[in-house]
């Protein structure tokens, strides 16, 4: 195949992946919707036998579970197509496929979906599926609409093996941050509901999710996994590469500033979890603010602020 054909295949794949992801989101939304009348199932496991039979009687949980299963399958399918899109993009450009903002968006979502799909298997966290798929759909869709560039060579500053190390680190951390942010949102929702909803009104998908304490633990673990990787990508690999490319380790370039701010906010989150008065709600909000700074660094700094890291176009 010619470079142009690879490029076209990549574009078709990314479009298809976005469509499939949108469908996955619809399925995950249905998983929530179908569970409207369902009483908390998971929490009733410890309740003496007998009560379970009633809650499982209606058709809704089956439909909800089926929708969740479809969501998971569609997400897997979208991931496969997206990986094809990313790989063929690399073949079309004859280099690693993360040299500009469009490509970064594609590979970041591919990695985020991979992390999500694996974690669903490990920790059974498909309850964040709706949030992850809608986020991924929006990022992929807007990447194509607003920052698409045809495949081409790298600018000389990016032509380094640090491009692999630094960017993969940032993307992996970002993928985990996304899962952590989704879990933190649901933690806030669930913790609030646990406080305000009387026992007899606890129906719907929210009550099929794990307890807020379990969600909090998932969020913490994901963040605890991501934070060292972010430290490595932003504060070790980044400066070493910056020294080789620009002759200084740290120069307070806009992207560096925001990477540092993200790092500080996640550090604050980890500390908040061990500080009286900050545990729980405040810590979860900190994690979301931290993710906000991460997103701003990707979108805001690339498009509106500029600086040495501006490879958007």
């Amino acid at each position, binding site marked *: 195949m010619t470079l142009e054909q690879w490029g076209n295949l990549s574009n078709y794949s990314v479009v298809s992946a976005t469509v499939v992801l949108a469908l996955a989101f619809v399925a995950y939304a249905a998983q929530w919707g179908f569970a409207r009348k369902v009483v908390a199932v998971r929490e009733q496991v410890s309740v003496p036998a007998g009560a379970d039979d009633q809650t499982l009687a209606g058709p809704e949980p089956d439909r909800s579970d089926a929708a969740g299963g479809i969501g998971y399958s569609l997400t897997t399918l979208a991931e496969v197509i997206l990986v094809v899109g990313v790989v063929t993009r690399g073949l079309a450009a004859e280099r690693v496929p993360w040299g500009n903002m469009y490509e970064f968006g594609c590979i970041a979502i591919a990695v985020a979906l991979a992390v999500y799909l694996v974690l669903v298997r490990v920790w059974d966290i498909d309850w964040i599926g709706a949030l992850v798929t809608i986020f991924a759909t929006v990022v992929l869709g807007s990447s194509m609409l607003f920052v698409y560039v045809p495949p081409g*060579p790298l*600018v000389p500053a990016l032509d380094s093996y640090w491009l692999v190390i630094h960017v993969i680190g940032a993307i992996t951390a970002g993928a985990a941050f996304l899962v952590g942010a989704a879990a933190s949102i649901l933690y806030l929702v669930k913790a609030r509901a646990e406080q305000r909803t009387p026992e007899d009104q606890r129906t719907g998908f929210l009550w099929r999710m794990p307890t807020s304490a379990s969600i909090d633990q998932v969020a913490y673990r994901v963040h605890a996994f991501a934070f060292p990787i972010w*430290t490595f990508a932003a*504060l070790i690999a980044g400066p070493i590469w910056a020294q*080789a490319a*620009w002759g200084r380790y740290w120069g307070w370039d*806009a992207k560096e500033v925001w990477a540092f*701010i993200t790092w*500080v906010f996640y550090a604050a989150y980890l500390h908040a979890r061990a500080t009286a008065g900050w545990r729980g709600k405040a810590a979860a909000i900190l994690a979301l603010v931290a993710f906000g700074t991460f997103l701003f660094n990707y979108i805001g700094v690339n498009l509106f602020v500029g600086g040495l890291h501006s490879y958007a176009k």
Partner: protein
Amino acid sequence: MSSDLAPELGWRGMARWAWRQLTSMRTALSLLLLLAIVAVPGSLVPQRGTDARAVESYLIDHPKLGPVLDKLGMFSVYTSPWFSGVYLLLMISLIGCIVPRSLVYLRALRARPPKAPKNLLRFPASHELVTSSSPDDVMTAARGALGRARIDVVDRDGVQELSAEKGYLREAGNLLFHISIVIVLIGVAATALLGYRGAAIVVEGDRFSNVLTQYDEFASGALFDRDKLPPFSFQLDDFAATYQVDGPQRGAPLSFEATGTYADGVDGKDAPFSIRVNHPLKIGGASVFLVGQGYAPVIKVTNRDGEVVFDEPVPFLPADSTYTSNGVVKVAEAQPEQLGFQGFFLPTFVEGEDGATRSVFPAPIAPILGLFAWHGDLGLDEGRPQSVYVLDKTNMTQYMDADDPEEGYEISLQPGESQKLPDGHTIEFVGLKQFARFQISASPGIEIPLIGIVAGLLGLIGSLSVRPRRTWVRARQDGSRTVVHVAVLDRVPRVDLPADLEQFVRRLKEPLEPPSNEGEGA
């Protein structure tokens, strides 16, 4: 003198109170958030340290807001008193946290696991089981089930008590991480004090010697002796740039390479070098980086008698990605009046419908030089340092167009072309050279923060992944059977503690014999 409380309210008490506040976790957390917030403006407003020119143009564009921001230190956020204040407070808070915790940890390292509390079953994660094995066997089984942990077994009037603690590495990692942050910050500061950084433009064919006068920009740390720049020199023979010639990314740079020879030391032998982006040249403890490039048209000026008064390449500084470049030519030897030129250089020009020329490609396919001319006094003799890229027009008069006195006299030259000026001088665009902009810097001791941050990362991973846990097992002989109480406690509360307890109990039970007569306790 009247109250017993008086000494506590004195300055010592105040100081102690302030110290405790500063080193508390809450304060540290607030300072951390404050640090993130005060770092923001530096990313939104141009900074003198990174882009002084952008600051100047910002001040011109915002005549009202600019000076206010300048007063607040917004153009040098990261060296401003308020930014430094926050991070110094954070440093003190950090050290105030590390020192006592290290002492506590050193004591804890030598300490034995805490004794088993009286009633183990009052713990949320606890379990009771009954076996016909002896208490000693229960202890052996518990040791086996615990694996690597610090374990004490005591016999209290026939009741065997086991206390175990594991996960000491968590706090070690935590302390290592925080200590290494201090090391990194000190290391970075020391490197900045001992190092230097400068930049110089070198045209093809020219030689750069590492002495202060050869630099266009130079900055060094307070502890660096400017007279002790390592002696080395290098000659730029050739600068090669390639650009994407077709497709949608036409004009995008593909590669830049500066080649030539360099000599290390006063009388070192010349050796060839190649400097590319991401591939600096290391000489004499310094590194030479390629940080920019552009064009230097060779310009020749001859007087009415045909004598050459100026003949050299003049670097024009690029302003955009197609290398629309601006520059200044100063002809000090011209008589009776000095000549000055200011204008632009375009590597590949096209003429638009409005008659204006613009650059469309970064490589020199159709170069053009456009200049305006001034005559008078360049102001070079006044002893004031002058930028070579700025024409001081205070004592100069512009040559105007003969047909339209409102318009400046225009010089437009392609390579090989020449033009006669109104005063009889001739200016010729002889040829084209390229220049490279090098940054030369040394950061001695940079290994220290590097090692520091790598150690910190390892500590961080340890502190986030190691789970400290205390386990107690009490076995009491009760007739022919043994009643066993188990409790597990985590310093950091975790949701999966019950599951872990269940697993531990299962492993504990494995080698034990089931109770002979009755079932396990509820």
